[in-house]
Protein backbone atom coordinates (compact mmCIF):
# COMPACT_ATOMS: atom_id res chain seq x y z
CA UNK A 1 0.00 0.00 0.00
CA UNK A 2 1.30 3.43 -0.89
CA UNK A 3 1.74 6.03 1.82
CA UNK A 4 -1.02 8.63 2.17
CA UNK A 5 1.15 11.50 0.97
CA UNK A 6 2.73 10.80 -2.36
CA UNK A 7 6.40 11.02 -3.01
CA UNK A 8 5.35 12.55 -6.28
CA UNK A 9 8.82 13.42 -7.51
CA UNK A 10 10.30 10.15 -6.44
CA UNK A 11 12.67 9.29 -9.20
CA UNK A 12 12.39 11.68 -12.07
CA UNK A 13 14.88 14.48 -12.67
CA UNK A 14 13.46 17.96 -13.12
CA UNK A 15 14.05 18.13 -16.86
CA UNK A 16 12.15 14.92 -17.39
CA UNK A 17 9.20 16.34 -15.48
CA UNK A 18 9.16 19.45 -17.63
CA UNK A 19 9.46 17.36 -20.78
CA UNK A 20 6.59 15.17 -19.65
CA UNK A 21 4.40 18.18 -18.91
CA UNK A 22 5.08 19.64 -22.35
CA UNK A 23 4.46 16.34 -24.12
CA UNK A 24 1.24 15.71 -22.20
CA UNK A 25 -0.05 19.21 -22.83
CA UNK A 26 0.77 18.90 -26.52
CA UNK A 27 -0.93 15.53 -26.61
CA UNK A 28 -4.07 16.90 -25.02
CA UNK A 29 -3.98 19.85 -27.39
CA UNK A 30 -3.73 17.51 -30.37
CA UNK A 31 -6.36 15.04 -29.22
CA UNK A 32 -9.13 17.60 -28.79
CA UNK A 33 -9.38 18.73 -32.45
CA UNK A 34 -9.28 15.08 -33.47
CA UNK A 35 -12.14 14.29 -31.11
CA UNK A 36 -14.05 17.28 -32.42
CA UNK A 37 -13.68 16.13 -36.00
CA UNK A 38 -14.35 12.50 -35.10
CA UNK A 39 -17.52 13.45 -33.30
CA UNK A 40 -18.86 15.46 -36.20
CA UNK A 41 -17.92 12.79 -38.71
CA UNK A 42 -19.38 9.92 -36.71
CA UNK A 43 -22.48 11.88 -35.77
CA UNK A 44 -22.98 12.43 -39.48
CA UNK A 45 -22.79 8.70 -40.12
CA UNK A 46 -25.35 8.12 -37.39
CA UNK A 47 -27.67 10.40 -39.37
CA UNK A 48 -26.93 8.87 -42.79
CA UNK A 49 -24.75 11.76 -43.90
CA UNK A 50 -21.06 12.40 -44.36
CA UNK A 51 -20.32 15.08 -41.84
CA UNK A 52 -17.79 17.79 -42.68
CA UNK A 53 -15.92 16.82 -45.86
CA UNK A 54 -15.22 20.10 -47.60
CA UNK A 55 -12.22 21.60 -45.81
CA UNK A 56 -9.10 19.75 -46.81
CA UNK A 57 -9.01 16.09 -47.84
CA UNK A 58 -11.98 14.28 -46.28
CA UNK A 59 -12.67 17.41 -44.24
CA UNK A 60 -9.59 16.82 -42.13
CA UNK A 61 -8.86 20.53 -41.81
CA UNK A 62 -12.32 21.29 -40.44
CA UNK A 63 -11.25 21.73 -36.78
CA UNK A 64 -8.45 23.99 -37.95
CA UNK A 65 -10.94 26.12 -39.85
CA UNK A 66 -13.29 26.21 -36.84
CA UNK A 67 -10.56 27.29 -34.46
CA UNK A 68 -9.17 29.88 -36.87
CA UNK A 69 -12.64 31.31 -37.33
CA UNK A 70 -13.19 31.55 -33.57
CA UNK A 71 -9.77 33.04 -32.87
CA UNK A 72 -10.16 35.63 -35.62
CA UNK A 73 -13.27 37.04 -33.97
CA UNK A 74 -13.35 40.20 -31.96
CA UNK A 75 -13.00 39.89 -28.20
CA UNK A 76 -15.79 41.80 -26.58
CA UNK A 77 -17.73 41.68 -23.37
CA UNK A 78 -21.12 43.02 -22.28
CA UNK A 79 -21.09 46.37 -20.52
CA UNK A 80 -22.60 44.83 -17.39
CA UNK A 81 -19.97 42.11 -17.08
CA UNK A 82 -17.25 41.90 -14.46
CA UNK A 83 -14.11 42.27 -16.52
CA UNK A 84 -11.41 40.18 -14.91
CA UNK A 85 -13.76 37.37 -13.90
CA UNK A 86 -15.18 37.29 -17.40
CA UNK A 87 -11.68 36.74 -18.75
CA UNK A 88 -10.61 34.40 -15.98
CA UNK A 89 -13.52 31.94 -16.13
CA UNK A 90 -12.67 30.19 -19.43
CA UNK A 91 -9.06 30.00 -18.35
CA UNK A 92 -10.13 28.26 -15.15
CA UNK A 93 -12.17 25.80 -17.18
CA UNK A 94 -9.32 24.93 -19.49
CA UNK A 95 -6.83 24.79 -16.63
CA UNK A 96 -8.77 22.25 -14.62
CA UNK A 97 -9.34 20.09 -17.68
CA UNK A 98 -5.65 20.12 -18.56
CA UNK A 99 -4.68 19.45 -14.94
CA UNK A 100 -6.82 16.33 -14.72
CA UNK A 101 -5.34 15.14 -18.00
CA UNK A 102 -2.02 14.85 -16.15
CA UNK A 103 -3.10 11.97 -13.93
CA UNK A 104 -4.13 9.55 -16.67
CA UNK A 105 -1.50 6.81 -16.62
CA UNK A 106 -0.45 5.71 -20.10
CA UNK A 107 1.94 3.07 -18.88
CA UNK A 108 4.05 1.98 -15.96
CA UNK A 109 7.57 3.32 -15.46
CA UNK A 110 9.84 2.91 -18.43
CA UNK A 111 13.50 3.60 -19.08
CA UNK A 112 14.07 6.82 -21.07
CA UNK A 113 17.62 8.21 -21.43
CA UNK A 114 18.73 6.18 -18.44
CA UNK A 115 16.10 7.68 -16.14
CA UNK A 116 13.18 5.81 -14.71
CA UNK A 117 10.16 7.66 -16.03
CA UNK A 118 6.49 7.08 -15.53
CA UNK A 119 4.41 7.57 -18.63
CA UNK A 120 1.95 9.88 -16.92
CA UNK A 121 1.98 13.45 -15.68
CA UNK A 122 1.96 12.64 -11.99
CA UNK A 123 1.12 9.50 -10.10
CA UNK A 124 -0.74 11.18 -7.27
CA UNK A 125 -1.50 8.83 -4.42
CA UNK A 126 -4.98 10.36 -4.20
CA UNK A 127 -5.77 9.81 -7.88
CA UNK A 128 -9.59 10.00 -8.04
CA UNK A 129 -9.68 12.65 -5.32
CA UNK A 130 -7.39 14.78 -7.46
CA UNK A 131 -9.90 14.33 -10.26
CA UNK A 132 -12.79 15.44 -8.08
CA UNK A 133 -10.84 18.29 -6.57
CA UNK A 134 -10.20 19.74 -10.00
CA UNK A 135 -13.73 18.87 -11.02
CA UNK A 136 -14.88 21.06 -8.13
CA UNK A 137 -12.69 23.92 -9.34
CA UNK A 138 -14.12 23.43 -12.81
CA UNK A 139 -17.49 24.49 -11.35
CA UNK A 140 -15.93 27.88 -10.73
CA UNK A 141 -15.09 28.14 -14.38
CA UNK A 142 -18.74 27.67 -15.22
CA UNK A 143 -20.23 29.58 -12.29
CA UNK A 144 -17.93 32.57 -12.69
CA UNK A 145 -18.51 32.54 -16.43
CA UNK A 146 -22.25 32.84 -15.92
CA UNK A 147 -22.00 35.28 -13.07
CA UNK A 148 -19.40 37.57 -14.62
CA UNK A 149 -21.34 37.85 -17.87
CA UNK A 150 -23.73 40.21 -16.15
CA UNK A 151 -26.69 38.62 -17.87
CA UNK A 152 -29.49 36.97 -15.96
CA UNK A 153 -29.85 34.20 -18.52
CA UNK A 154 -26.17 33.36 -18.32
CA UNK A 155 -26.47 33.34 -14.56
CA UNK A 156 -29.50 31.07 -14.62
CA UNK A 157 -27.65 28.80 -17.02
CA UNK A 158 -24.66 28.59 -14.76
CA UNK A 159 -26.86 27.82 -11.75
CA UNK A 160 -28.48 25.04 -13.72
CA UNK A 161 -25.08 23.72 -14.72
CA UNK A 162 -23.75 23.86 -11.18
CA UNK A 163 -26.78 22.03 -9.80
CA UNK A 164 -26.36 19.31 -12.37
CA UNK A 165 -22.63 18.92 -11.87
CA UNK A 166 -22.89 18.79 -8.09
CA UNK A 167 -25.70 16.23 -8.21
CA UNK A 168 -23.86 13.85 -10.48
CA UNK A 169 -20.47 14.24 -8.88
CA UNK A 170 -21.83 12.40 -5.84
CA UNK A 171 -22.84 9.36 -7.84
CA UNK A 172 -19.64 9.52 -9.86
CA UNK A 173 -17.54 9.54 -6.72
CA UNK A 174 -19.42 6.67 -5.12
CA UNK A 175 -19.11 4.60 -8.29
CA UNK A 176 -15.34 4.79 -8.03
CA UNK A 177 -15.29 3.72 -4.39
CA UNK A 178 -15.94 0.10 -5.36
CA UNK A 179 -12.81 0.06 -7.48
CA UNK A 180 -10.79 1.76 -4.79
CA UNK A 181 -11.94 -0.69 -2.11
CA UNK A 182 -11.00 -3.66 -4.27
CA UNK A 183 -7.59 -2.27 -5.13
CA UNK A 184 -6.81 -0.90 -1.71
CA UNK A 185 -5.10 2.11 -3.24
CA UNK A 186 -6.10 5.49 -4.64
CA UNK A 187 -3.15 5.68 -7.00
CA UNK A 188 -4.34 5.34 -10.58
CA UNK A 189 -1.17 3.48 -11.55
CA UNK A 190 -1.80 0.94 -8.77
CA UNK A 191 -5.41 0.60 -9.86
CA UNK A 192 -4.37 -0.03 -13.46
CA UNK A 193 -1.73 -2.54 -12.41
CA UNK A 194 -4.23 -4.33 -10.21
CA UNK A 195 -6.30 -5.12 -13.30
CA UNK A 196 -3.60 -7.21 -14.95
CA UNK A 197 -5.66 -10.35 -14.34
CA UNK A 198 -9.19 -9.09 -14.75
CA UNK A 199 -10.45 -5.65 -15.68
CA UNK A 200 -12.73 -3.97 -13.19
CA UNK A 201 -15.49 -3.77 -15.77
CA UNK A 202 -16.31 -7.41 -14.95
CA UNK A 203 -16.59 -7.37 -11.14
CA UNK A 204 -17.60 -3.70 -11.02
CA UNK A 205 -20.01 -3.65 -13.98
CA UNK A 206 -22.66 -1.71 -12.07
CA UNK A 207 -20.00 0.74 -10.96
CA UNK A 208 -18.86 1.09 -14.56
CA UNK A 209 -22.35 1.91 -15.77
CA UNK A 210 -22.98 4.38 -12.95
CA UNK A 211 -19.63 6.05 -13.47
CA UNK A 212 -20.20 6.32 -17.19
CA UNK A 213 -23.71 7.73 -16.79
CA UNK A 214 -22.55 10.25 -14.23
CA UNK A 215 -19.67 11.13 -16.52
CA UNK A 216 -22.09 12.02 -19.29
CA UNK A 217 -23.63 14.52 -16.89
CA UNK A 218 -20.26 15.75 -15.63
CA UNK A 219 -19.03 16.49 -19.12
CA UNK A 220 -22.36 18.11 -20.14
CA UNK A 221 -22.98 15.59 -22.86
CA UNK A 222 -26.34 14.57 -24.29
CA UNK A 223 -28.59 13.26 -22.71
CA UNK A 224 -27.55 15.50 -19.81
CA UNK A 225 -26.54 18.62 -21.70
CA UNK A 226 -29.02 20.76 -19.77
CA UNK A 227 -26.29 23.36 -19.30
CA UNK A 228 -26.40 24.18 -22.98
CA UNK A 229 -29.50 22.61 -24.49
CA UNK A 230 -28.44 24.01 -27.83
CA UNK A 231 -31.67 23.06 -29.53
CA UNK A 232 -33.92 24.84 -27.05
CA UNK A 233 -32.12 27.68 -25.33
CA UNK A 234 -29.79 30.37 -26.52
CA UNK A 235 -27.10 28.80 -24.42
CA UNK A 236 -26.17 28.40 -20.81
CA UNK A 237 -23.32 29.94 -18.88
CA UNK A 238 -21.46 30.65 -22.14
CA UNK A 239 -24.17 32.73 -23.80
CA UNK A 240 -22.20 35.95 -23.66
CA UNK A 241 -18.96 34.40 -24.77
CA UNK A 242 -17.62 34.48 -28.29
CA UNK A 243 -14.38 34.10 -30.16
CA UNK A 244 -11.34 32.78 -28.36
CA UNK A 245 -13.00 32.67 -24.96
CA UNK A 246 -15.82 30.56 -26.28
CA UNK A 247 -13.22 28.39 -27.97
CA UNK A 248 -11.59 27.92 -24.56
CA UNK A 249 -14.85 26.74 -23.04
CA UNK A 250 -15.44 24.46 -25.97
CA UNK A 251 -11.92 23.12 -25.78
CA UNK A 252 -12.24 22.49 -22.05
CA UNK A 253 -15.49 20.65 -22.61
CA UNK A 254 -13.93 18.27 -25.10
CA UNK A 255 -10.76 17.89 -23.08
CA UNK A 256 -13.02 16.86 -20.21
CA UNK A 257 -14.52 14.20 -22.44
CA UNK A 258 -11.04 12.94 -23.23
CA UNK A 259 -10.08 13.00 -19.56
CA UNK A 260 -13.19 11.11 -18.53
CA UNK A 261 -12.47 8.56 -21.25
CA UNK A 262 -8.95 8.20 -19.87
CA UNK A 263 -10.14 7.85 -16.28
CA UNK A 264 -12.75 5.27 -17.31
CA UNK A 265 -10.06 3.38 -19.19
CA UNK A 266 -7.81 3.39 -16.16
CA UNK A 267 -10.45 2.55 -13.59
CA UNK A 268 -12.56 0.00 -15.42
CA UNK A 269 -10.93 -1.05 -18.69
CA UNK A 270 -7.60 -2.13 -17.26
CA UNK A 271 -5.50 0.85 -18.29
CA UNK A 272 -2.67 -0.43 -20.49
CA UNK A 273 -3.39 -4.10 -19.77
CA UNK A 274 -4.47 -6.25 -22.66
CA UNK A 275 -6.84 -9.19 -22.30
CA UNK A 276 -5.96 -12.84 -22.89
CA UNK A 277 -2.56 -12.61 -21.21
CA UNK A 278 -1.01 -10.53 -23.99
CA UNK A 279 2.08 -8.76 -22.73
CA UNK A 280 3.45 -6.44 -25.42
CA UNK A 281 6.59 -4.32 -24.96
CA UNK A 282 6.27 -1.10 -23.02
CA UNK A 283 6.10 1.22 -26.00
CA UNK A 284 2.75 -0.31 -27.00
CA UNK A 285 1.09 0.61 -23.70
CA UNK A 286 0.24 4.27 -24.48
CA UNK A 287 -1.37 3.18 -27.72
CA UNK A 288 -3.46 0.60 -25.88
CA UNK A 289 -4.67 3.32 -23.51
CA UNK A 290 -5.34 5.70 -26.39
CA UNK A 291 -7.29 3.02 -28.24
CA UNK A 292 -9.46 2.31 -25.20
CA UNK A 293 -10.04 6.05 -24.78
CA UNK A 294 -11.04 6.15 -28.42
CA UNK A 295 -13.62 3.43 -27.78
CA UNK A 296 -15.08 5.34 -24.83
CA UNK A 297 -15.27 8.54 -26.89
CA UNK A 298 -17.05 6.56 -29.59
CA UNK A 299 -19.56 5.41 -27.00
CA UNK A 300 -20.06 9.02 -25.92
CA UNK A 301 -20.84 10.02 -29.49
CA UNK A 302 -23.06 6.99 -30.01
CA UNK A 303 -25.11 7.89 -26.96
CA UNK A 304 -25.29 11.47 -28.16
CA UNK A 305 -26.73 10.28 -31.45
CA UNK A 306 -29.29 8.11 -29.66
CA UNK A 307 -30.77 9.67 -26.57
CA UNK A 308 -32.93 12.77 -26.33
CA UNK A 309 -32.32 15.35 -23.66
CA UNK A 310 -33.86 14.79 -20.23
CA UNK A 311 -36.20 17.25 -18.62
CA UNK A 312 -34.70 19.09 -15.67
CA UNK A 313 -36.79 17.32 -13.02
CA UNK A 314 -36.05 13.99 -14.70
CA UNK A 315 -32.37 14.83 -14.59
CA UNK A 316 -32.49 15.57 -10.89
CA UNK A 317 -34.64 12.60 -9.93
CA UNK A 318 -32.51 10.28 -12.03
CA UNK A 319 -29.35 11.50 -10.35
CA UNK A 320 -30.62 11.44 -6.79
CA UNK A 321 -33.23 8.68 -6.81
CA UNK A 322 -31.66 6.11 -9.11
CA UNK A 323 -27.94 6.67 -9.61
CA UNK A 324 -27.09 7.59 -6.05
CA UNK A 325 -28.88 4.63 -4.37
CA UNK A 326 -27.45 2.28 -6.99
CA UNK A 327 -23.95 3.60 -6.40
CA UNK A 328 -24.40 3.28 -2.63
CA UNK A 329 -25.64 -0.30 -3.00
CA UNK A 330 -22.69 -1.05 -5.23
CA UNK A 331 -20.26 0.28 -2.63
CA UNK A 332 -21.96 -1.70 0.15
CA UNK A 333 -21.95 -4.94 -1.83
CA UNK A 334 -18.32 -4.47 -2.85
CA UNK A 335 -17.27 -3.70 0.70
CA UNK A 336 -19.03 -6.81 2.05
CA UNK A 337 -17.53 -9.02 -0.64
CA UNK A 338 -14.03 -7.64 -0.08
CA UNK A 339 -14.29 -8.16 3.69
CA UNK A 340 -15.73 -11.67 3.34
CA UNK A 341 -13.17 -12.66 0.72
CA UNK A 342 -10.35 -11.55 3.01
Amino acid at each position, binding site marked *: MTPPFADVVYFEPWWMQIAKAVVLFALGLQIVPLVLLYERKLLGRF*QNRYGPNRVGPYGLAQPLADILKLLAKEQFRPRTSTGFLFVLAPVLSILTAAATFAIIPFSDTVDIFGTKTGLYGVDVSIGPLFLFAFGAIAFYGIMLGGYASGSKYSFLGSMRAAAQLISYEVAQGLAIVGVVITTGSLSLVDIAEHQAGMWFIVPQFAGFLIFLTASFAETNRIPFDLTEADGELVGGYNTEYGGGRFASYYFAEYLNVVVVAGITTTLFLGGWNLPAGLDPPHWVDPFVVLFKMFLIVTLFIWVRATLPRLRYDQLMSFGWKILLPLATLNVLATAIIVVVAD
Partner: protein
Amino acid sequence: MPWNPGDDVIAVQRGPQPGGGGGAYRAFGETLRGLKTTLRRVTEGVTTLEYPEEKTAVYPRWRGRHRLHRFEDTGLEKCVGCSLCAAACPVDCIRVVAAENDPEERVSAGERYAAIYEINLSRCIFCGYCEVACPFDAITMGSDYELSDYNRSDLIFTKEMLLAEPLERTPLRAEGE
Protein backbone atom coordinates in the same frame (compact mmCIF):
# COMPACT_ATOMS: atom_id res chain seq x y z
CA MET B 1 -52.80 11.45 -13.80
CA PRO B 2 -53.25 9.88 -17.20
CA TRP B 3 -56.08 11.08 -19.38
CA ASN B 4 -59.46 9.56 -18.47
CA PRO B 5 -61.20 8.41 -21.65
CA GLY B 6 -64.68 8.34 -20.03
CA ASP B 7 -67.14 5.68 -19.01
CA ASP B 8 -68.01 4.36 -22.46
CA VAL B 9 -64.52 3.03 -23.00
CA ILE B 10 -64.30 -0.30 -21.21
CA ALA B 11 -60.66 -1.19 -21.52
CA VAL B 12 -57.77 1.02 -22.42
CA GLN B 13 -54.44 -0.51 -23.19
CA ARG B 14 -51.76 1.45 -21.43
CA GLY B 15 -48.04 1.07 -21.24
CA PRO B 16 -46.52 0.40 -17.86
CA GLN B 17 -46.30 3.34 -15.49
CA PRO B 18 -43.01 5.18 -15.65
CA GLY B 19 -40.84 5.54 -12.60
CA GLY B 20 -39.83 3.13 -9.92
CA GLY B 21 -37.47 0.21 -10.23
CA GLY B 22 -39.35 -1.37 -13.11
CA GLY B 23 -39.38 1.91 -14.98
CA ALA B 24 -35.64 2.29 -14.60
CA TYR B 25 -35.13 -1.28 -15.80
CA ARG B 26 -37.35 -0.70 -18.84
CA ALA B 27 -35.65 2.60 -19.55
CA PHE B 28 -32.30 0.82 -19.56
CA GLY B 29 -33.62 -1.79 -21.99
CA GLU B 30 -35.09 0.87 -24.24
CA THR B 31 -31.80 2.74 -24.18
CA LEU B 32 -30.02 -0.34 -25.46
CA ARG B 33 -32.68 -0.72 -28.14
CA GLY B 34 -32.16 2.90 -29.13
CA LEU B 35 -28.42 2.36 -29.37
CA LYS B 36 -29.04 -0.60 -31.66
CA THR B 37 -31.33 1.51 -33.84
CA THR B 38 -28.80 4.29 -34.28
CA LEU B 39 -26.01 1.83 -34.98
CA ARG B 40 -28.08 0.43 -37.83
CA ARG B 41 -28.06 3.91 -39.39
CA VAL B 42 -24.26 3.74 -39.52
CA THR B 43 -24.26 0.38 -41.25
CA GLU B 44 -26.82 1.61 -43.77
CA GLY B 45 -24.35 4.09 -45.21
CA VAL B 46 -24.92 7.65 -46.31
CA THR B 47 -27.71 8.96 -48.49
CA THR B 48 -26.13 12.36 -49.07
CA LEU B 49 -26.18 13.80 -52.56
CA GLU B 50 -23.13 16.06 -52.70
CA TYR B 51 -24.94 18.92 -54.34
CA PRO B 52 -22.64 21.07 -56.40
CA GLU B 53 -21.00 17.95 -57.84
CA GLU B 54 -24.07 15.75 -58.06
CA LYS B 55 -27.46 17.16 -58.93
CA THR B 56 -30.90 15.76 -58.51
CA ALA B 57 -32.71 15.22 -61.75
CA VAL B 58 -35.84 17.36 -61.90
CA TYR B 59 -39.24 16.12 -62.95
CA PRO B 60 -40.63 16.88 -66.44
CA ARG B 61 -43.24 19.24 -65.01
CA TRP B 62 -40.70 21.09 -62.88
CA ARG B 63 -41.14 24.84 -63.16
CA GLY B 64 -37.68 26.25 -63.52
CA ARG B 65 -36.32 29.17 -65.52
CA HIS B 66 -38.40 30.14 -68.57
CA ARG B 67 -37.45 29.25 -72.10
CA LEU B 68 -38.61 30.92 -75.32
CA HIS B 69 -38.93 28.67 -78.33
CA ARG B 70 -38.50 28.77 -82.08
CA PHE B 71 -40.12 26.65 -84.73
CA GLU B 72 -37.74 23.82 -85.43
CA ASP B 73 -38.25 23.78 -89.18
CA THR B 74 -38.23 27.51 -90.05
CA GLY B 75 -36.25 28.85 -87.13
CA LEU B 76 -38.85 31.58 -86.56
CA GLU B 77 -39.76 32.62 -83.07
CA LYS B 78 -43.01 31.28 -81.78
CA CYS B 79 -43.73 34.40 -79.76
CA VAL B 80 -45.97 36.88 -81.53
CA GLY B 81 -45.79 39.58 -78.87
CA CYS B 82 -49.41 39.30 -77.76
CA SER B 83 -48.51 40.13 -74.13
CA LEU B 84 -50.94 37.54 -72.75
CA CYS B 85 -48.15 36.18 -70.57
CA ALA B 86 -47.50 39.65 -69.16
CA ALA B 87 -51.20 40.00 -68.47
CA ALA B 88 -51.34 36.65 -66.73
CA CYS B 89 -48.28 37.27 -64.63
CA PRO B 90 -49.34 37.87 -61.01
CA VAL B 91 -46.16 39.73 -60.09
CA ASP B 92 -45.76 41.71 -63.31
CA CYS B 93 -42.31 40.48 -64.02
CA ILE B 94 -42.70 40.09 -67.79
CA ARG B 95 -42.27 43.02 -70.12
CA VAL B 96 -43.21 42.63 -73.77
CA VAL B 97 -42.92 45.33 -76.44
CA ALA B 98 -44.33 44.13 -79.74
CA ALA B 99 -43.37 45.29 -83.24
CA GLU B 100 -44.68 44.63 -86.74
CA ASN B 101 -42.93 41.92 -88.68
CA ASP B 102 -41.05 42.95 -91.78
CA PRO B 103 -42.36 40.60 -94.55
CA GLU B 104 -38.89 40.43 -96.10
CA GLU B 105 -37.16 39.45 -92.91
CA ARG B 106 -39.59 37.74 -90.59
CA VAL B 107 -38.72 37.28 -86.94
CA SER B 108 -41.82 35.43 -85.82
CA ALA B 109 -44.45 33.38 -87.58
CA GLY B 110 -47.31 35.78 -86.80
CA GLU B 111 -48.06 39.33 -87.82
CA ARG B 112 -46.11 40.83 -84.98
CA TYR B 113 -43.15 39.78 -82.92
CA ALA B 114 -41.70 40.68 -79.54
CA ALA B 115 -39.13 43.39 -80.04
CA ILE B 116 -38.36 43.37 -76.33
CA TYR B 117 -39.09 40.39 -74.16
CA GLU B 118 -37.75 40.61 -70.60
CA ILE B 119 -38.42 38.53 -67.53
CA ASN B 120 -37.31 39.88 -64.21
CA LEU B 121 -36.38 36.64 -62.46
CA SER B 122 -35.78 38.34 -59.14
CA ARG B 123 -39.55 38.94 -59.06
CA CYS B 124 -40.78 35.77 -60.75
CA ILE B 125 -42.57 33.36 -58.45
CA PHE B 126 -42.41 30.46 -60.91
CA CYS B 127 -46.17 29.97 -60.92
CA GLY B 128 -46.25 28.95 -64.58
CA TYR B 129 -49.26 31.12 -65.51
CA CYS B 130 -47.34 32.60 -68.45
CA GLU B 131 -46.86 29.14 -69.87
CA VAL B 132 -50.58 28.44 -69.51
CA ALA B 133 -51.59 31.79 -71.00
CA CYS B 134 -49.41 31.51 -74.11
CA PRO B 135 -51.53 30.57 -77.16
CA PHE B 136 -48.52 29.42 -79.20
CA ASP B 137 -46.49 27.52 -76.58
CA ALA B 138 -43.79 30.09 -77.16
CA ILE B 139 -42.82 30.34 -73.50
CA THR B 140 -42.43 27.30 -71.29
CA MET B 141 -40.96 26.72 -67.89
CA GLY B 142 -37.54 25.12 -68.26
CA SER B 143 -35.65 22.93 -65.83
CA ASP B 144 -32.92 25.29 -64.60
CA TYR B 145 -33.06 26.20 -60.95
CA GLU B 146 -29.58 27.53 -60.21
CA LEU B 147 -30.44 31.18 -60.70
CA SER B 148 -28.55 33.04 -58.02
CA ASP B 149 -26.49 36.02 -59.03
CA TYR B 150 -24.52 38.83 -57.47
CA ASN B 151 -26.52 41.59 -59.07
CA ARG B 152 -30.25 42.22 -59.35
CA SER B 153 -29.94 43.68 -62.82
CA ASP B 154 -28.23 40.47 -63.97
CA LEU B 155 -31.44 38.65 -63.14
CA ILE B 156 -33.42 40.46 -65.84
CA PHE B 157 -33.32 37.91 -68.65
CA THR B 158 -33.61 39.28 -72.17
CA LYS B 159 -35.13 37.58 -75.17
CA GLU B 160 -31.75 36.41 -76.45
CA MET B 161 -30.94 34.78 -73.09
CA LEU B 162 -34.32 33.11 -72.94
CA LEU B 163 -34.05 31.82 -76.50
CA ALA B 164 -30.53 30.45 -76.05
CA GLU B 165 -29.79 26.97 -74.82
CA PRO B 166 -28.86 27.07 -71.12
CA LEU B 167 -25.14 26.94 -70.50
CA GLU B 168 -25.38 24.18 -67.98
CA ARG B 169 -28.15 21.71 -68.43
CA THR B 170 -30.03 20.51 -65.42
CA PRO B 171 -30.53 16.75 -65.53
CA LEU B 172 -34.08 15.84 -66.35
CA ARG B 173 -35.93 12.85 -65.06
CA ALA B 174 -37.58 10.53 -67.53
CA GLU B 175 -41.35 10.18 -67.29
CA GLY B 176 -42.24 7.79 -64.49
CA GLU B 177 -38.75 7.78 -62.98
